[in-house]
């Protein structure tokens, strides 16, 4: 009955052991001392247990047939919905401020405009602090610098501001702000009730 760590990167360790005549057992360390125990029967049935601490008896949470287990596994894997935007990465700077990277898709409101024309800071409160164009990175871009589809923009702001930026400028269909409550026009006129005077 070998117990082998399958995956030792970060703090996540999955232990696998044989259960002769039954199937296999995988134990996943949840990091707080509890373990998730998945028993995969030779018949395909999965039983999922939770063990509160090293000494506790495993408590059965649920069991699934083979097909259902695969479907649930696919959902957990994020095949249908990725909570972390695949085009963006974010870093929390502290407090509510984050730094986020966005790819600019074809047809986005931000494509082929300058930062001033788009009115990024006025309309969303977020600031573009760098533009990546292929190998070339423009740090602290000038308001007259142009952004093109395929560029990556690095944005700083609160969660709300960054979300507003994404909604206003990165929709591929150009239907910025639709359904988002705020009415942003594509040419960047200051129709936003929250916007102050031009910078």
């Amino acid at each position, binding site marked *: *009955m*070998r117990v082998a760590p399958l995956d030792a990167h970060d703090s996540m360790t999955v232990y696998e*052991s*044989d*259960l*002769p*005549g*039954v199937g296999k*057992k995988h134990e996943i360390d949840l990091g707080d001392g509890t373990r998730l*125990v998945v*028993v995969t*029967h*030779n*018949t395909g049935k999965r*039983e999922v*247990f939770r*063990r509160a601490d090293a*000494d*506790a*008896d*495993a*408590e*059965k949470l649920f069991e699934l047939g083979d097909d259902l287990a695969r479907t649930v596994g696919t959902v957990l894997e994020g095949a249908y919905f990725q909570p972390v935007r695949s085009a963006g990465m974010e870093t929390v700077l502290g407090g509510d401020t984050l730094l986020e990277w966005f790819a600019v898709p074809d047809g986005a409101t931000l494509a082929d405009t300058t930062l001033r024309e788009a009115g990024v800071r006025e309309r969303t409160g977020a600031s573009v602090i760098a533009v990546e164009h292929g190998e070339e990175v423009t740090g602290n871009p000038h308001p007259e610098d142009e952004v093109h589809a395929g560029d990556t923009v690095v944005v700083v702001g609160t969660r709300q501001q960054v979300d507003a930026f994404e909604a206003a400028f990165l929709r591929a269909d150009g239907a910025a702000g639709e359904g988002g409550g705020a009415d942003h026009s594509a040419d960047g006129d200051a129709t936003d009730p929250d916007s102050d005077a031009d910078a």
Partner: protein
Amino acid sequence: MAAENGLLALGVLFGVVAAAGAVGRRTGVPAVPLYVLGGVVVGPYVAGAAGLPYVSDSETVTVLAEVGVVLLLFFLGLEFSLDRLLAARRRLSAAAGVDLLVNFPLGVALGLLFGWGPVGAFLLGGVVYVSSSAVITKSLVDLGWIADPEAEPVLGTLVAEDLVVAVYLALASALVLGGDPASAAVRVGVALAFLVVVAALAQFGARPLARALDGSDEDLVLRTMALALVVAGLALAVGASEGVAGFFVGVGVGATPLHDRVAETLAPVRDAVAAVFFAWVGLRTDPALVVAVAGPLAVAAVVTGPAKVLSGAVGGRLYDLPRRRSLRTGLALVARGEFSLVIAALAAASPDPRVAATLPAFAVGYVLVMALAGTLAMSEAARIERLLGVGAD
């Protein structure tokens, strides 16, 4: 009067084991002893004695029961992996060694004490030694212990026992026929040589075997059955154990990539014929004989039950488990079942009347008691832990 019609006899027998299985599921009693009891009830000694139509251990039923033994051992071999055994050999061989060195000699000693002669004692050693994979695995799953650390020493010990049983059955089936030491030695030699050949083929012939067996599910079932039964039949013809031959065929198939498919497609066949085997054991059991060995039975239960708990607990400690988990390892290993009955069936062929008449009846009684005791020990584990002062807080 006996049902002379083989078809009817089999139909009734399947009906009885089906009913016994349903009772087992409802009450939580393990299926193996219930199948045996079902056989006893519809057999000549109960239904027959009451003047009712009964099922006899006719040739039809017997052949199917033999197929049951072959497939039981085939599956044992299928799950058996030398690599797995070697990978865990340090802890496992220690735990399995304790299991063997405590329980087998204890059974032999009891056999000598009961005056059953050396062969009888050797057989009793086996009956007492082998825990029941079928009963124990089911309890582990039903109670959720399968997800706890004790599952590993328990299942590991069962796997090691399986290997010992294969060797043991090879010896026992040659010894049980008796005769003068010289012819017995020849028989043992021939039997072992045959099995060595089968084992060698199983170990090194994985690739051609896989090619020969592979096909649709239907092909796979039919070809595997043909292989297992032909090899088992040849074993019988040269005086080797058909069950052990089945074991090594299982080992061979287990080493091929077809392992999982064979297990899946053949399991229902195994379940059906194994149930017939257990019921067949019941058909041949005279309850009066079981009652007649009640004394030895009580002694054996009282001595060998705690001995298994102890040896299992030591095994758990060898797996670095805490005291409570070690105790649970021991409790889990108490149940005896299918292989004690296989040994009993073997004993029935002995020319020694002490062995042929007494031991099978004893084994049936012993399995009934120990399968229930083992299942109970597991479901009442929390109470037993508290009683022994190792309970969880």
